[in-house]
């Protein structure tokens, strides 16, 4: 698999299991060993944050945290644009977006056809 060729400078935390897990969550595949190596470098880069002392510091979600979000009144003022929204989809039946069957998991890595390198 990809991990055997992973960057020796990397953290070595990207096991085959992690790759599979990430690909399932992201629904995006690595596609190559280089991509795994890049992730390892990205993690190593992020690890530098450990050096910062954040004891007692609250996480900041938004720079506008001291303000209240503006809320609109709960009245319908627009809509009725089904046609416009349906126009951009490739597969539509009447007013439905058509999806392939769900509840079918992606095959496990070792069962899959190897992806072509992008």
């Amino acid at each position, binding site marked *: 698999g990809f991990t055997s060729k992973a960057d020796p400078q990397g953290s070595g935390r990207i096991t085959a299991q992690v790759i599979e*897990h990430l690909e399932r969550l992201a629904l995006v595949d690595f596609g190559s060993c280089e991509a795994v190596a890049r992730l390892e470098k990205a993690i190593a880069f992020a690890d530098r*944050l450990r050096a910062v002392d954040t004891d007692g510091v*609250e996480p900041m979600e938004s720079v506008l945290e001291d303000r209240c979000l503006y809320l609109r009144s709960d009245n319908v003022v627009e809509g009725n644009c089904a046609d416009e929204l349906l126009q951009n989809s*490739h597969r539509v039946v009447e007013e439905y977006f058509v999806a392939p069957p*769900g509840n079918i998991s992606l095959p496990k890595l070792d069962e899959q056809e190897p992806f072509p390198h992008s």
Partner: protein
Amino acid sequence: MLGRTLQEVSAALKQGQITPTELCQKCLSLIKKTKFLNAYITVSEEVALKQAEESEKRYKNGQSLGDLDGIPVAVKDNFSTSGIETTCASNMLKGYIPPYNATVVQKLLDQGALLMGKTNLDEFAMGSGSTDGIFGPVKNPWSYSKQYREKRKQNPHSKNEDSDWLITGGSSGGSAAAVSAFTCYAALGSDTGGSTRNPAAHCGLVGFKPSYGLVSRHGLIPLVNSMDVPGILTRCVDDAAIVLGALAGPDPKDSTTVHDPINKPFMLPSLADVSKLCIGIPKEYLIPELSSEVRSLWSKAADLFESEGAKVLEVSLPHTSYSIVCYHVLCTSEVASNMARFDGLQYGHRCDINVSTEAMYAATRREGFNDVVRGRILSGNFFLLKENYENYFVKAQKVRRLIANDFVNAFNSGVDVLLTPTTLSEAVPYLEFIKEDNRTRSAQDDIFTQAVNMAGLPAVSIPVALSNQGLPIGLQFIGRAFCDQQLLTVAKWFEKQVQFPVIQLQELMDDCSAVLENEKSASVSLKQ
């Protein structure tokens, strides 16, 4: 006429010296001539001409909508434009035609601006070179300037003129090239980590990033919701203020816009008393990688303020060195979330696989996204894994607070405005730039700009002088939150002092008489 400022052209339109249609046609013609710059993805010729016609009617009836009526503008291709393809330079959205306008686009149109087209960018605004989109890289107009070419002729090793073309910087490179090459008077960019200010510095333009919450993000295809803002690119500060005046303000469709009554910074006052100003110089921004030329200009700028009686203080932003790391974690995490909407079902690219939804989504996303986007999605998902969430994502959020506090502390020590470099050096050749990967380059190039996005502050890059190679170098001013008007006032004063030269593109154009003629008037106009 094309070399004039927005203000000047607006006056000319009002006085009938030129009609919107004539102006529009000149810009369209120049867009065609400068096609090799690859600044535009879509040129909305018919739309622009129709808008010009309507603008002309208004002027004839003495009912112009304001300073932007009849003014050609361009919009980065990650803003939704109704009826006009919006691609984000990605296969994922190739052919996507939004059914609505982004609020900022709507505001420009409501003021009568002419939409010349959608400009090129790095795919999904991820990058600092405008080199990684599916439509190819954008070329910096300065590659073809007399100023640059003359310097290169002196270099005996200079090769074939076009193979060494320079990048625009990014990710709003198309917008920057469009304004820099005189094809429009203003362009919208976006700024998440410096994507408006970086190309502004490399293309000799004013690149303005408003305070987070001042300008609506509705319709701006999101990258990092807590940091994105629409950015403005113009050739002078007054022009940026005019555009900001049209765009700023609360939007019920974007709940992250603030509803304070904010003074619309339409006309900037002349800075009466520089001696009342306090300029802060963050010492941690003096890093070894900074080119000596930029460092020298930075120093001269500080001296300039001091010589006019302003107080110039060294300040400390102690967490600066962690800023880019923090940005990297937060950015990839938010990207992982924001890119999840692209599954092929409701809009955008859809692959042919129909076996299962998961298989369809996965293949659609593999086909739709480039390596850079996919890499960031995967990194983001890694940081958001349960076992990593505290140590990476929450940790980065805490560091973000420390960084934001650094700025608060600096401003509390009496500083009005911070002065820093915008980029490490002038624009580099494309062949040089692509030697490193996108993430590495972004980490290097965003170093002075991204902390501002984390703190949500307003910032502007002002072109200062040409390098020894004849290329633009810009410096950045950073203001307090929602003090955009004050920031632009200081920037305007500085711009007047430095008198940055106009780009000379006459070698570029065949029938260049129109441009030459207006260069003279443009250089006079900047000397107010």
